[in-house]
């Protein structure tokens, strides 16, 4: 069991813009404190480390669990930062031992973090949930109550076939939507849902112009809707899916000491 406290980091952004967020509630309703170095601030708050240990042993993740509260607090702080300008959201669960360590990290990585912030300036992340509906003209999966083995097998076969066709249609839809929206956005990423659902795929879009994205989506949506493919757009979100890791790799001098990247 971990004991003690640490400095949790929510996001990094422009020091001036984030100064306004001093004191907003974070995890466990503890006040958020911007830790600043140069032009950058990291939004932090003090957390109890044993809360995180409890998460590891959790048997259920429900809306009322501590994890749900912490994840929502993380996102709420990152969203408030986003409302004030470009932001680099941290991965959930990043904690430094002391505030001085956070400041040291900002000092050593100032150039790389600032470059990444400038690269993402003006763009926000959007989530497009692509879902394929279950066709109504397909036979029901449940076999008839009559209990004929042949009928059951036929129904089962038809259901499996329908499922496979749905998956193919979803793949086709995702490919086309991706191709059509690509010219309208800066970057695109695709991911499968965490829960393993086979009827849904997420397309992540890094967009400069939300209205242009929404307008470009309309004809695509109209085309795919009759085929049972629904498209749900939400955002703007912090750019979780478009951060470049290479700018944040450890940098060392010949003496082995970490240093600010040139």
């Amino acid at each position: 069991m971990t004991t003690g406290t640490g400095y949790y980091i929510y996001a990094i952004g422009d020091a001036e813009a984030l100064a306004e967020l001093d004191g907003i509630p974070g995890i466990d309703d503890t006040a958020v404190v911007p830790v600043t170095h140069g032009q950058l601030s990291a939004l932090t708050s003090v957390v109890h480390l044993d809360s995180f240990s409890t998460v590891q042993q959790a048997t259920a993740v429900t809306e009322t669990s501590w994890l749900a509260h912490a994840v929502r607090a993380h996102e709420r702080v990152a969203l408030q930062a986003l409302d004030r300008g470009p932001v680099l959201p941290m991965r959930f669960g990043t904690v430094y031992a002391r505030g001085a360590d956070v400041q040291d990290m900002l000092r050593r990585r100032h150039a790389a973090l600032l470059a990444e912030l400038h690269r993402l300036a003006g763009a926000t992340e959007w989530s497009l949930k692509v879902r394929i509906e279950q066709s109504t003209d397909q036979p029901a999966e449940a076999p008839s109550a009559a209990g004929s083995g042949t009928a059951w097998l036929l129904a089962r076969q038809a259901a499996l076939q329908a499922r496979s066709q749905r998956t193919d249609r979803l793949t086709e839809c995702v490919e086309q939507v991706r191709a059509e929206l690509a010219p309208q956005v800066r970057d695109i990423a695709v991911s499968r849902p965490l829960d393993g659902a086979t009827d849904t795929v997420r397309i992540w879009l890094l967009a400069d112009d939300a209205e242009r994205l929404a307008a470009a989506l309309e004809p695509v949506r109209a085309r795919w809707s009759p085929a049972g493919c629904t498209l749900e757009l939400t955002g703007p979100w912090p750019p979780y899916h478009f951060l470049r890791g290479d700018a944040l790799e450890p940098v060392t001098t010949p003496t082995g000491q970490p240093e600010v990247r040139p």
Partner: protein
Amino acid sequence: MTLPNSGNYPSASRSGDTLADLLERILDKGIVIAGDVVVNILDIELLTLKLRLLIASVDTAKQMGIDWWQDDPFLSRDARALQQENQQLRQRVYELEGTAQPAGDTQPDDVRGARE
């Protein structure tokens, strides 16, 4: 520093984010400062795997082909009916062949099915 503000959008589109949506969006994403001394409090990979298992709904599991309960006589009426039919057919075969049903052939499930 002058960076364009990126927050001039209606916030209405942000509503309706379920916990599953949120976890999917942020859980293993975001900046990781490699090589720094960070208190390593969360094994994110482990946690992600755990969440993946926990938030998988019955419907999802079914789509993934995890539908063993459909064939479990305790959980599915159709399976029970099939078990019963199977038992009757087997009995009929033994009768036609003029042999007695071997004692070891009666599985506990068959017995349960026949009694329903």
